[in-house]
């Protein structure tokens, strides 16, 4: 039995924040931000826009009827509340049936984890149409100071939604394979420490903010995403020349360039990149890139898409899809 991405949607908040608006607060120049990340602008939610609301809009934009959804997975690092997560908010706001609602928190790998779980649900017969919502309101957690400049310059807000179904018509994406892996010894190199039991009662203010060892992230992300791609290609007896599109997590444009070089891609324009205009939207980024690609009308029947990601944990992986 197969599983298919049958619909996609995305949403970016109206407010656009340019490098020019941010640079001085972060102790950087607009060109420094662009050169080190490939980002020129990002969207930030208004104070009243909560994460589940972004996810709701993205899910509405799939044009899938609320009645048809029988399982909801919500991937975010910036949930509406500590408990419960954001999935119940979507269920209530969109009047979904009283279906299972699950939050996942695998950061920038949420799309891959969501796809693997959704695929397992539909191929096992436990669900027919799984909505995978991916959304972030990261702007609320960023410190706008030179001390946090190289981290805060990266992140944007946004949402994507993918509907995974047991049947796929022409234009759907068959989920051929998803590979995921984790090495937990890098837990302090990327993430947010608090709130959490490890720092209960002794958390410093900076423990509530994103922390990133950029060097470690770049080194490990470059290698692990590449190896994940190779694993998926090998076990499906494909080479990179068989792949038409790379739809990676949009972490940093320089990392996407590195990935293309490592994969020995002959045509780098096949790497889908939206980061210049969105920044790094973490959980939502791969879904936004995929929705953008589907909306472009460039996908052709039989084409393979390779979708690698890397996230806090560290955890990483890649998905392989084929256009029906």
């Amino acid at each position: 039995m197969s599983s298919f991405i049958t619909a996609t949607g995305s949403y970016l908040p109206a407010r656009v924040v340019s490098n020019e608006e941010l640079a001085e607060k972060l102790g950087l120049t607009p060109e420094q931000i662009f050169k080190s990340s490939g980002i020129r602008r990002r969207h930030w939610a208004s104070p009243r826009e909560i994460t589940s609301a972004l996810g709701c809009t993205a899910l509405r934009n799939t044009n899938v009827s609320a009645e048809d959804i029988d399982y909801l997975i919500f991937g975010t690092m910036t949930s509406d509340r500590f408990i419960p997560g954001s999935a119940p908010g979507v269920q209530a706001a969109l009047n979904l049936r009283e279906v299972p609602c699950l939050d996942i928190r695998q950061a920038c790998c949420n799309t891959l984890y969501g796809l693997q779980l959704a695929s397992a649900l539909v191929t096992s017969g436990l669900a027919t149409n799984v909505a995978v919502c991916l959304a972030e309101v990261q702007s609320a957690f960023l410190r706008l100071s030179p001390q946090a400049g190289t981290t805060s310059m990266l992140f944007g807000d946004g949402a994507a939604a993918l509907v995974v179904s047991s049947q796929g018509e022409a234009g759907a994406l068959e989920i051929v394979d998803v590979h995921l892996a984790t090495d937990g010894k890098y837990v302090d190199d990327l993430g947010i420490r608090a709130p959490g039991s490890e720092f209960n009662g002794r958390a410093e203010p900076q423990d509530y903010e994103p922390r990133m060892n950029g060097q470690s992230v770049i080194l490990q992300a470059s290698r692990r995403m590449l190896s994940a791609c190779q694993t998926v290609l090998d076990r499906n007896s494909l080479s990179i020349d068989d792949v038409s599109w790379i739809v990676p997590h949009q972490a940093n444009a320089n990392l996407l360039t590195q990935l293309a070089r490592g994969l020995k891609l002959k045509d780098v324009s096949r790497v889908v990149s939206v980061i210049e205009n969105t920044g790094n939207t973490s959980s939502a980024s791969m879904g936004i890139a995929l929705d953008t690609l589907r909306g472009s009308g460039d996908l052709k029947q039989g084409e393979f898409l390779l979708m690698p990601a890397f996230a806090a944990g560290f955890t990483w992986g890649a998905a392989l899809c084929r256009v029906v």
Partner: protein
Amino acid sequence: MSLPQPVIEFLNNNAATLGVPQVAVDLDLFKSGALDSFALVDFVTVLEEHCGIRVPDAEVIPANFRTIEDIDRYVSSRRLES
């Protein structure tokens, strides 16, 4: 020093591109700007190709590649293990 010429050439070329004129064996490649994180990823690939070693992902850390002396030591240790 047992590093093959293409490895040294990669370092020299990368350093020249980044405006660092001379790469001495004890130069801190990261502090001097001769290597950055992205270049290190490419450099490790060159090292694997020309030194016949496999660098595990977990060992792609700057401490192993800080100077040419460090790199030489690291390559020797990998060769001994394989």
